């Protein structure tokens, strides 16, 4: 029924809705059963409601049906017909997972029987959870005497909120405020901001002011336990307070006692609901969780978004528009100068024009800088987009693992290029799973070692200059050095002699080698066949770096260092044997010159010493198989990522330049040590060095330095 473009838009929107659902659900879960925030409940309900509507518009019946069940449950929840408990949160959390899977299928035009079946099972579960106690027989709203005209515009939810306020016995008010049409939205949100701390704004009713077309009136229906004087004092200018009900609330029958916590026997007899699990009970009066075992959604699903859209704050686009306006201005200036120049006869141009042109060129440069920064800004999205999904996944994995683990997250507001954020989700998921699977010990074991029974796994992000540092930290068992050595030698990754010379840090880094795995068993949680080597490769593709620190019995920390953005980078242009290469400036630490006589050889490798630090010396000409000149002195670009250092010998420094890296295609794609190509102003293509990959290649224990042809 719908055009492809509309489908893409649907997938993007549906995806956003699911993200909101997931996030809000987490908040609700954390807040626990005590008086959940009605706005939040309504937001979650609205999300499910919109998803249902959307999916049915696009003929995705299975999604629509499951979303409908979720909506019904959330409707019952927000209308107070069903309690908020662990069972409900679990069922919904699983629903989100399944919906995400189905959405992924829909985006590829698929529709698997497996997910349909899961949707069926979950739908039934949602329905079961939703069966709550029926509402009150007598409607208190009928008794308080509310203007039927006002009541007629309430949605069912607003009526419910009003009813709840009546039951609480708080004061009900009508706040009438008249605002100019020009700025009513800001004025109204000011008023809302004043009122919210004092109670609940149940509804906002707009109405016209007869005979006045330039203003608009609002009636805010407001419930508050505070005395009238205090509410009155909080109002903004021009707002008037009056009682909402014609009957004094005191005349009402006393509110019914709060309903006793309901405990229902799950329909699905779950013999193993305990599993001896030491997972700390959630903040809810715990009902046995049956949901988790009915249909474990595949854990192997990727957490990547289904779409490539970026939601942009309009302010950022305004900034871009401004820059473009300025650029147009510069263009017309240049045109004017050109026109003036054209009309002057004679071979020489007045010096004045040269100066003017120079000024315009400078202005142009400034504006282009702005524009570039602006576009980069637009690409930035908060890491929270991925962290939220990971948090949800972790909650589930922790519960399934039967371990007692606290999961901490911080730094979700750190922003990174959308492309990088997307690519990060899988590696992070893998590292977190590793931490849970191999790091966190069972409580008995922890207590034996004198540690707290509950393990902690953390996911932290922070910005540091042009980089973002992400840490995956656990306070678990730590890596077993002896075992790493044994395995690495066993698998032929290094020789025993080599391991003996290795520092602890290098030894730990062996776990990133392809074919390495200290796992004695393949757990259901950790992916099969995918090791840390893949995580490392993924990160290198992002010009990122991964590092481990670990102490036996104290824990392990994986530190990921990532550039803020991939799109445009500042590079150092260098010449090697007559060819030009670009070295990303963020990896360049310093440039030194070294006399050939100062080179030393250790283990058949050339090294240099810079201020007491010894580091490998690599002749780029040799790496790329280019002819090499004999010289007495070398320029050396010292590059580094994390703690690794490398000196790259070059012939000539050309300068710094902003470059846009484009991926290589075809047979060029597999050149090691090259991340892409860039075009210089004179249309010449230049290869961009991939420092991470070069280090990986060249610093490997058995690295071969055989010449390769490229460049």
């Amino acid at each position: 029924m719908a055009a492809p473009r509309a489908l893409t838009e649907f997938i993007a929107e549906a995806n956003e809705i699911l993200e909101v659902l997931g996030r809000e659900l987490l908040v609700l879960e954390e807040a626990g059963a005590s008086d959940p925030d009605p706005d939040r409940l309504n937001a979650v309900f609205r999300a499910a409601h919109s998803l249902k509507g959307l999916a049915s518009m696009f003929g995705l019946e299975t999604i629509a049906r499951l979303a409908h069940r979720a909506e019904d449950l959330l409707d019952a929840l927000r209308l107070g017909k069903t309690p908020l408990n662990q069972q409900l949160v679990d069922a919904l959390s699983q629903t989100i997972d399944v919906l995400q899977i189905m959405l992924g299928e829909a985006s590829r035009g698929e529709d698997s029987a497996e997910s349909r079946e899961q949707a069926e099972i979950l739908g039934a579960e949602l329905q079961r959870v939703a069966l709550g106690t029926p509402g009150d027989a007598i409607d208190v709203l009928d008794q308080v005497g509310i203007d039927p005209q006002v009541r007629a515009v309430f949605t069912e939810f607003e009526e419910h909120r009003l009813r709840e306020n009546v039951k609480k016995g708080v004061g009900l008010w009508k706040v009438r405020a008249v605002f100019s049409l020009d700025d009513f939205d800001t004025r109204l949100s000011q008023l809302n901001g004043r009122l919210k701390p004092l109670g609940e704004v149940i509804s906002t009713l707009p109405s016209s002011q007869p005979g006045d077309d330039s203003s608009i009136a609002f009636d805010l229906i407001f419930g508050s336990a505070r005395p009238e004087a205090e509410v009155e004092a909080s109002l903004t200018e021009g707002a008037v307070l009056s009682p909402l009900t014609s009957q004094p609330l005191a005349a009402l029958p006393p509110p019914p006692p709060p309903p006793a916590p309901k405990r229902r026997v799950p329909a699905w007899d779950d013999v193993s609901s305990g599993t001896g699990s030491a997972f700390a009970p959630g903040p809810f009066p715990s009902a046995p969780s049956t949901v988790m075992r009915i249909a474990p959604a595949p854990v192997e699903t990727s957490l990547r978004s289904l779409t490539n859209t970026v939601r942009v704050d309009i302010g950022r686009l305004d900034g871009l528009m401004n820059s473009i306006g300025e650029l147009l201005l510069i263009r017309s200036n240049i045109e004017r100068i050109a026109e003036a120049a054209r009309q002057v006869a004679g071979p020489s141009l007045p010096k004045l024009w040269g100066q003017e042109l120079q000024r315009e060129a400078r202005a142009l440069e400034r504006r282009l800088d702005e524009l570039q920064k602006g576009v980069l800004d637009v690409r930035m999205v908060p890491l929270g987009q991925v962290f939220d999904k990971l948090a949800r996944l972790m909650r589930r994995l922790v519960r399934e693992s039967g371990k007692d683990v606290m999961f901490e997250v911080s730094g979700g507001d750190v922003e990174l290029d959308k492309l990088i954020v997307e690519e990060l989700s899988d590696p992070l998921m893998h590292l977190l799973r590793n931490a849970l699977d191999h790091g966190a010990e069972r409580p008995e074991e922890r207590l034996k070692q004198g540690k707290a029974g509950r393990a902690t796994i953390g996911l932290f992000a922070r910005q540091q200059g042009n980089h973002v540092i992400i840490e995956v930290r656990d306070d678990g068992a730590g890596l077993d050095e002896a075992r790493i050595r044994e395995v690495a030698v066993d698998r032929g990754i290094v020789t025993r002699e080599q391991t003996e010379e290795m520092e602890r840090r290098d030894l730990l880094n062996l776990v990133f080698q392809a074919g390495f795995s200290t796992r004695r068993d393949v757990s259901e949680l950790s992916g099969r066949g995918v090791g840390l080597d893949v995580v490392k490769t993924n990160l290198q593709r992002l010009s990122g770096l991964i590092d481990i620190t670990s102490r036996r019995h104290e824990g392990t920390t994986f530190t990921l260092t990532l550039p803020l953005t991939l799109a445009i980078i500042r590079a150092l242009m260098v010449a090697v044997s007559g060819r030009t290469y670009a070295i990303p400036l963020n990896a360049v630490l310093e440039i030194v010159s070294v006399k050939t006589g100062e080179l030393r050889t250790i283990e058949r490798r050339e090294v240099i010493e810079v201020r007491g630090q010894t580091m490998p010396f690599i002749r780029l000409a040799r790496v790329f198989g280019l002819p090499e000149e004999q010289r007495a002195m070398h320029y050396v670009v010292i590059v580094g990522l994390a703690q690794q250092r490398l000196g790259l010998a070059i012939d000539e420094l050309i300068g710094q330049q902003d470059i846009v890296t484009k991926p290589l295609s075809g047979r060029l794609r597999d050149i090691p040590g090259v991340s892409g190509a860039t075009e210089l102003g004179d249309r010449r293509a230049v290869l961009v060095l991939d420092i991470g990959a070069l280090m990986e290649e060249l610093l490997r224990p058995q690295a071969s330095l055989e010449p390769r042809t490229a460049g």
Partner: protein
Amino acid sequence: MLASPAVSTLRKVLIVEDSGATRELLRSALETIEVVEVHMAVSGFDALKVLPRHRFELIITDINMPDINGLELINFVKKNPHYRDTPLFVVTTEGREQDRDRGLQLGANEYVVKPFDPARISELVRRYLKL
């Protein structure tokens, strides 16, 4: 504050809907009618801002929206002498009978349930615009 009577011969229709994808679907349904000029508002508030700026000949609104809901918007429109006679359709998801009944009581002219058939929407619009 009201815009001067339309100079253009285009017939202006306002869509109030917070879901972007649904908005697009409604718009493409309406744009099959040549003389219709589609305006869009993403919330009830937004609609209140847009309303006085044009003389709309038809309003299509969702019910469940943040800030002010569709019922409140209908009530506002149908009580305002300037807009009172403008036909108004409610387009919303099935299953909320109470909201539907209230919408009709408040003066909505048509009630369309999602998933809707775009052809039906454009047919209804034609009928109300007497095309």
